[in-house]
């Protein structure tokens, strides 16, 4: 196994799963075995709502570089939005 490197963070938002949109209230971020990408380990993010069961999950599995690029891009977009006075 299995690194068991995992963090959980409370979030607010919506995700689109197998049965359509649902509220997500937690993100599980791990660097561990993925299910789909052909690598031994990946940066995995599961957006979940555990009250709705294990199937209420929107999943992404990213390479290390993709994950770092995503983090940078999210921050750049938020900074731009803030600079434009769009964050209230």
């Amino acid at each position, binding site marked *: *196994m*299995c*690194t*068991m490197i*995992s963090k*959980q963070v409370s979030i607010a938002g919506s995700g689109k799963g197998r049965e359509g949109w649902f509220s997500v209230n937690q993100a*599980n971020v*791990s660097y*561990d*075995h993925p*299910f789909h990408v*052909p*690598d*031994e*380990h990946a940066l*995995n993010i*599961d957006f*979940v709502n*555990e009250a709705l*069961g*294990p*199937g209420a*999950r929107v*999943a992404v599995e990213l390479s290390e570089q993709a994950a770092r690029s995503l983090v940078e891009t999210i921050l750049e977009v938020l900074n731009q939005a803030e600079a434009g006075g769009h964050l209230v």
Partner: protein
Amino acid sequence: MTFTTDMYEGMLAETVTMPGANGELINAYFARPTGEGPFPGMVIIHHMPGWDEWYREATRKFAQYGYAAISPNLYFRSGHGTPEDVAAKVRGAGGIPDDKAVGDIEGAMLYLRSLPNSNGKVGVFGTCSGGRHAYLAACRVQGFDALVDCWGGRVVMAEEDLNENFPVAPIDYTKDLSCPILGLFGEEDSSPTPEQVAQHEAELKKHGKNYDFHMYPDAGHGFFYHHRPNYRQQQAVDGWEKTFAFLEKYLKN
């Protein structure tokens, strides 16, 4: 057991309910040969990616080789859904407590021992986290006659990685290991690394245990998994042959 074209062969395979840790009921996949027996038993411990299709296939493979094989769902308490969704939930939570896993594995061993056609011997097999759990169980529970640990990571653990769920590094239970162990590992694995496997092997030697470790070149983690890119055909075939030769020696004779 060599199959010949004039032989009868049959098995029953189904999900069942069994008592796990603290007598709590969990589900399990149970495959056993048809016939009177007596049959040795095998507890098959799934990996971190869950109680999935590969594990149901593997459980049937052990039945085909003449073992009453049961694979307990160690993630039963995490809810139900697809094996992947349930495993993702467990991954997000950082795993399951070692005590629960050991209790469930002990329950599976007792289940097999209770069968009227048991030959009185039970082994345990696991890959990835299942290899680690199998090792823990064979150290902490009396009653296993053979152990196959396939690339079980985190047998060697740093002090800072110990917590309420993982209070003791499995390697520190080595003096209590109660049965022979076959270990199969890949040189390119990062968990366990070849250095960690060597450390584990040294501990087994120190305590005078019966062990047989194999480190495969050009193989990493999970080289038995035919549905993943880490599959290595030659190493996997050899590993299965070693597994069944080892179990034949300790569970059937």
